[in-house]
């Protein structure tokens, strides 16, 4: 059972904002098949690409960081991205577990 009260990622986002950083919040909003992190899992990314938290087992975090930096640069308020099963032989981003996830990115402003 998830205890959302004990997770401190939103508090960390607030600390980053207080330090005048730009912050994008990435949240897992949907999963299909097997996926490593459940709906509601979060990570935060700043304009330098620093991040905290996770949305998968390390499979798609690098792509999420890129997308988050992108929406800060383009000044886009929000975006939805989806990740599907990866091709194991290729160096591409995807979920080796065979699942699919949708991640919602939003700037905090």
């Amino acid at each position, binding site marked *: *059972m*998830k*205890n*959302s*009260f004990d997770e401190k990622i*939103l*508090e960390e*986002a*607030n600390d980053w*904002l207080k330090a005048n950083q730009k912050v994008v*919040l990435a*949240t897992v*909003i*949907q999963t299909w098949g097997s996926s490593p992190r*459940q*709906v*509601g899992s979060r990570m935060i990314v700043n304009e330098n690409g620093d991040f905290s938290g996770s949305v998968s087992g390390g499979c798609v975090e690098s792509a999420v960081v890129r997308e988050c930096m992108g929406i800060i640069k383009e000044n886009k*308020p*929000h975006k*939805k991205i989806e990740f599907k099963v990866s091709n194991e032989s290729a160096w591409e981003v995807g979920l080796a577990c065979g699942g699919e996830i949708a991640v*919602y990115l*939003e*700037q*905090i*402003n």
Partner: protein
Amino acid sequence: MKKKLLEQIIKKKENKDEFAIITNIANGESCIFEKNKSIDKNFEKYLSEISNHFNKKKNGIIENTDIFIETYVRPIKVIIVGAVHIAQYLVDYAKSLNFEISIIDPRGYFATEQRFPDLKIINKWPEEAFKELETNENSALIALTHDPKIDDPALQHALKNKFYYIGALGSKKTHENRCQRLKDAGFSEAEIYSIHGPIGIKLGGKSAPEIALSIIAQLVEVTYKK
């Protein structure tokens, strides 16, 4: 998300208020939902679906909408009767599973702080102890003493207050006797049948940590079916 909303969310988390964060992923709007309170007018038309998700403690997108809901609900209260060896392992498992444990044991030599550091132990008989605890249909009872003097009053309290999980340690024979006593006390067949006894799922283990694991596994299973 607005900075102000983030600050409000953090405050609610600090206070351990139960709430949900509602986000419209199509237009980026978000707000806080609380039970029995009015909601931001942009989300009013989804109110019944949002309440429904919240009651089920579900996170996710509401079907056929762009509304994402993330619920913050307090841990489930689990009352253990009997500060015995198995209880020490149950406490360890429960920590990482979002269960909030209280232990009742009138026997002072069991319920010591040394055996259970950082835990609320109520060193009273169950009838008295339950006066200090707020319990309802979201509570669970694990009776471990297999001493009728201690377990029975706790089981009766749990049945009357409709706990969603009631389990009692003891052999088949012990459990049969227990059921008979509850029947004599006026509880119905259905009520008595709702007690998990002998407690736990069948794992085959006999050691204290293994029994604790089988109990906590059953509790998780029943919690998800709730």
